[in-house]
């Protein structure tokens, strides 16, 4: 017992100060893309050619990155001769609208809060049922990590629950495989309305690397209306937390 208490003291306090303080992120973190349209070489489309998921759009000489498809893999950065594309360390990527994820530089419109009526029903808590539907266990792991002492999701009144009956909504990871389609729909309908749908990761938003496979549905919005998109492959835990807090109007 004394040993356990001593160990408790030695392990120390781990909870980060986010959202009050600014969190420390790895210097090589790939967050919101940086697009310098002026550096784009006319007639060049190498970024479009190398992108594994077709995330890059090129209309005339205007480059856009669909961060709902982007794997943040650097293939485009390596291919671009003019250095028009890069990544910042800005982890705030979540959005309530699919269109807003198509980013071509400038200010990014992050997610906004749910409508007042829904927020009033939820009160100060949000209970979510997580469904992995073809997720590779990376998104799942970084959703799970929010429950650790580092992020301490409970302090925001957010909790992942075992039953959809106890949930205010579902959080889906993975491209929604054909073999999980029924289970996703059943779980969704088992949650009482108004129910929220959150798509976490490139797969759940667009199919990710599995776009257009006949075995998947190209993401959850092919089946259900989505309230919050959290991009990344996988999203950094701070990206997910930031998105959830914005949805609740806490940021």
């Amino acid at each position: 017992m004394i040993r356990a208490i001593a160990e408790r003291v030695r392990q120390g306090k781990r909870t980060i100060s986010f959202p009050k303080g600014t969190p420390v992120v790895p210097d090589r973190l790939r967050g919101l893309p940086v697009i310098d349209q002026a550096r784009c070489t006319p007639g060049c489309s190498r970024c479009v050619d190398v992108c594994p998921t077709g995330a890059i759009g090129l209309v005339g000489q205007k480059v856009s990155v669909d961060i709902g498809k982007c794997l943040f893999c650097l293939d485009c950065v390596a291919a671009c001769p003019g250095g028009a594309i890069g990544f910042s360390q800005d982890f705030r990527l979540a959005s309530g609208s699919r269109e807003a994820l198509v980013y071509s530089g400038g200010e990014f419109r992050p997610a906004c809060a749910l409508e007042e009526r829904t927020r009033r029903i939820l009160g100060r808590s949000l209970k979510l049922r997580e469904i992995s539907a073809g997720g590779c266990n990376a998104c799942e792991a970084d959703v799970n990590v929010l429950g650790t002492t580092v992020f301490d999701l409970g302090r925001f009144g957010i909790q992942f629950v075992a039953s959809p009956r106890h949930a205010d909504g579902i959080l889906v990871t993975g491209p929604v495989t054909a073999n999980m389609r029924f289970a996703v729909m059943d779980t969704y309908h088992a949650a009482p309305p108004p129910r929220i749908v959150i798509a976490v990761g490139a797969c759940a938003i667009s199919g990710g690397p599995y776009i257009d496979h006949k075995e998947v549905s190209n993401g959850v919005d092919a089946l259900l209306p989505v309230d919050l998109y959290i991009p990344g492959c996988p999203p950094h835990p701070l990206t997910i937390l930031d998105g959830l807090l914005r949805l609740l109007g806490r940021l």
Partner: protein
Amino acid sequence: MMSDTKPARMKNAGVLALKDLTLLNIREFEDSVTGSLSAGGRLCALFGMPYRLGNSIMPSADVITLVAAIGHGREGVIEVAATEVKDSYPALTRHLPQANCFEREIAEQWGVRPAGHPWFKPLRFHRCYRPGRDAWTRPLDGEILPCVTDFFRVEGDEIHEVAVGPVHAGIIEPGHFRFQCHGERVFHLEIALGYQHRGVERAVTKGPDKRTLHYMETLAGDTTVGHATAYCQVIEALSGMDVPARAEDIRAVALELERCANHTGDLGALAADVGFLPTSSYCGALRGDFLNMTALICGNRFGRGLARPGGVSFDMDGSRGDDLVERLERTFRGVKGAAELLWETPSVMARFEDTGRLSKRMCRELGVVGMAARASGVEMDVRSEFPFGAYRISRPPVRTWFSGDVYARARVRWMEIEASYEFIRQRIRGLSKGPVMTDAPLEPSPDSMVVSLVEGWRGEICHVAITDQDGRFARYKVVDPSFHNWMGLQMALRDQQISDFPLCNKSFNLSYCGHDL
């Protein structure tokens, strides 16, 4: 047909010209595989492809070529043999339980029936890749629903069945579990998977292309570095590339960080499953520290973007190595304290010991790999038996435990964290100088075969590539360690309390998507 009935022999990540791949008749093939396994070999892969062998391989509509890769750990040699089958052949599983899932996969993918297979059920629940065929004679126009199949049933007074999944209580991947119970006692557990099937192997055929590496990095997200390394070794072998030593060091560091992260997370999860919250909460945070060390190297907590054919994308520049070692030492002290609490707490040990026991003999018969096998006293580790990359120069010692229970699987995890910790520190201190990426061209050689083995944190990862005359993948086979080990978990649960299932499950912590592909 060639008269030589000896299987071809190759090294890990070595190249074999397809003309040297011995084609046996089905009888010789069965004898050869049986003989190799009884001589101490292990089935690393067994798969089919719709091609016929020759000087150049030719697509074939009615013949499926079966290829077996058998690892001989003591000699560090991989034997490969091939045979041709049509609609049916005598199942190897009748004598060799290791072949169970492989033969069901062959049946599901190519519509070839392994006659006499004792556990003949679909594996992933998808349509056959050869149109118009179905090994189970299901209607060809109907939909294939996941886990609609026969389940093993125990009958009798007071026997009851418990069905769980695909959606589980926690944040985990989907699978369907059926328990045949007598009161609290489990007579048998059957696990049916396939919910995560994304069609990876089908999509990788005709590659490599711009998506291939990203499939590899997401095959099993918690094993990103392991699978990406296995794939890079395939491409490098096929292209005859020499990978810079510094890149191999960085890959090995990332692979060991992946091992530490997952083992630490599992120690915490095991603690949580017996209600011991201190270790559970410490390990949750400490696991993240390991992931952040990987992010220090490459910006991504799971190592995405790091390994690329020809080397790695990120160098350990400036003080990055010192920073990493400092963090590693601090985190290691934390894990040591958290793990020691487990062994010192009688209520934890009472639940760990003698729960979910898997015998050494059973491990060998089923072909269980990696940490789970080592916890049953099987001394096997790709890093020592088939050394690759930086492990050719130095490697962590193989850690085993004798008891095969949940305690053994926890204990081996901790011993492996210790070993990896020492290894990472050594590797970073002695980090080779030079570039981290070769500029040799990426040109996979035609009509060739490569078997690439990597010791991922769960165990042996096996990738096999066979190229056509244009150097494209005629077949790319992925075997995640989970593919071997799911049967081990089912056997470990026999005669256990049903309430011990979460604990047993976590002690294996297998990948669903790695199995379902």
